[in-house]
């Protein structure tokens, strides 16, 4: 199972949601702390996700208000380099809302991902916050294990 499949229903039109995939300013509102993007097929993007982890790749396909596909990987990570995996997002209107489905495919295998541990913990904390609708706040796993 080397792919992820995540969906969310957003109370906004597909045209509003679509802008968040191509406009660097809006990308920063949900993907990272800094972003640079050239949203056309073959155009590159770079997102500083955490302030330390930079993801980059290029746009593969852009269908306005419907579908965006881009490659993904981490700069400086030979196990998971830029361009090594693919993120595919589809936007589907559902009344006044839009269902966003994100599939991340071609993920590298394995438990070799020890180097991701900090990110793992960081994002699990975010997951908890997202699941409860609260602010991420303090990372609940800051104390070292005994």
């Amino acid at each position, binding site marked *: 199972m080397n792919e992820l499949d995540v969906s969310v229903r957003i*109370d906004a039109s597909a045209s*509003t949601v679509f802008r968040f995939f191509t406009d660097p300013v809006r990308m920063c509102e949900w993907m990272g702390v800094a972003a640079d993007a050239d949203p056309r097929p073959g155009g590159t993007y770079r997102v500083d996700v955490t302030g330390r982890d930079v993801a980059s790749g290029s746009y593969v396909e852009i269908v306005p208000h419907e579908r965006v596909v881009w490659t993904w990987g981490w700069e400086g990570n030979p196990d998971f380099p830029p361009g090594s995996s693919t993120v595919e997002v589809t936007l589907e209107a559902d009344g006044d809302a839009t269902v966003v489905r994100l599939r991340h495919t071609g993920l590298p295998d394995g438990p070799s991902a020890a180097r991701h541990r900090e990110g793992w913990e960081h994002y699990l904390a975010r997951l908890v916050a997202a*699941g409860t609708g609260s602010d991420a706040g303090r990372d609940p*796993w800051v104390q070292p294990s005994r």
Partner: protein
Amino acid sequence: MDAALRALAEPTRRQILRLVRDRERTAGDIAEHFDVTRPAVSQHLRALQEAQLVTVRRDGTRRWYRARPEGLSEMQAWLASMWRGNLADLKRAAEREERSVRARRGGTMRAKGRA
């Protein structure tokens, strides 16, 4: 995937998983690392087992736990949670923008009952 992420949403369970990642341990050994009660640890272990994140080996009366290597890898777990967190942020940001777009359009949207 969701069962695994739900299991991992609890900090104690993440710590347990970390303990048994490289080494098989008994429930008693695991419990010694935590201030919570033994039954509470057993409950966490059961949740991890149900999510297929750990395997259990019986040895007489003892049960040995170990992280299941083919379970959700850390990389996938954190990437999944990254995307979920990101999409939650996207939802907030896009809905905020949509509200202001609709407010700017004014009357026409109000006619549809959505100011």
